[in-house]
């Protein structure tokens, strides 16, 4: 079934604050094999002009995926999560994320369309501090494969 167009323009209330921790940043930097000292060493980060260790550029996915789950798993939207793949992702950074940040995320539905039997959902996550300082904007295109219309048996498996 095609997704309900009336979801376009909807937003989901800001998530509870996510507190960015030094050890979580280190764990993420280790997982992506990035040895840059500004992710690990507070002194190196301060020498580079940051208040504390900063997070790698794609670290915000930890926060935005969590916030986005509310939309993706909204039973009213009816997205088949088992058929979901990530189509596109972008980040616009207003300033680096650093340890000690308490970040809240509001998820917006920017678009819903169907193409070649796939449902395609475009989301925007606005990440700010608790005080409302803009930190980054993350956009994602989420594709549910073969869910937009009835597929012949066996298609896609």
């Amino acid at each position, binding site marked *: 079934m095609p997704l309900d167009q009336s979801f376009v323009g909807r937003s989901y209330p800001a998530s509870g604050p996510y507190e960015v921790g030094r050890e979580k940043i280190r764990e993420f930097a280790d997982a*992506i*094999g990035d040895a*840059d000292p500004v992710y690990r060493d507070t002194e190196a980060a301060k020498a580079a002009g940051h208040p504390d260790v900063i997070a*790698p*550029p794609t670290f915000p996915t*930890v926060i935005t995926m969590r916030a986005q789950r509310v939309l993706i798993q909204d039973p009213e939207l009816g997205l088949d999560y088992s058929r979901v793949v990530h189509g596109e992702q*972008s980040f616009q950074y207003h*300033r680096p994320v650093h340890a000690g940040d308490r970040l809240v995320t509001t998820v917006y539905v920017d678009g819903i369309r169907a193409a070649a039997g796939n449902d395609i959902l475009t989301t925007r996550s606005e990440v700010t501090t608790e005080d409302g300082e803009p930190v980054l904007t993350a956009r994602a295109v989420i594709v549910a494969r073969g869910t937009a219309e009835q597929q012949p048996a066996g298609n896609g498996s």
Partner: protein
Amino acid sequence: MPVLRYDDVEVGDQVGPVAVPITRADLVRYAGASGDFNPIHWNERFAREVGLPDVIAHGMFTMALAARLVTTWAGEPSALVDYGVRFTRPVVVPDDGTGATVEFSAKVKEKLDGNRVRLEVSALAGEQKVLGRAIAIVRLAGRLA
């Protein structure tokens, strides 16, 4: 501050290539660090059930590795001000003791105002492009005062 200076960069400058091996252990570690536990990234049976050839890497993992190339070149991660990719093909990671290898490179395509440059990033698994329209905007250091 970025180490690299705007004046030292020319359109056409190449970054890399760097070949990055990806194993199942890397995917498990990334799943834990990112919180993305979708079983297509660690469970071969599940991956095949949903029509994939085998376990595939998280697109966000590939995106992170590509960013690493760019921020290492710039000399400072916060130099990256805008970054976007399309996930055009999955990186298939077999459980064969070798895994996959992705080759990352980037090219300076344009010099912009405000000491910013636009790079196009390439990620190849074998002959296949796994990222499309991968664009990084980096703000470099200005002139020495």
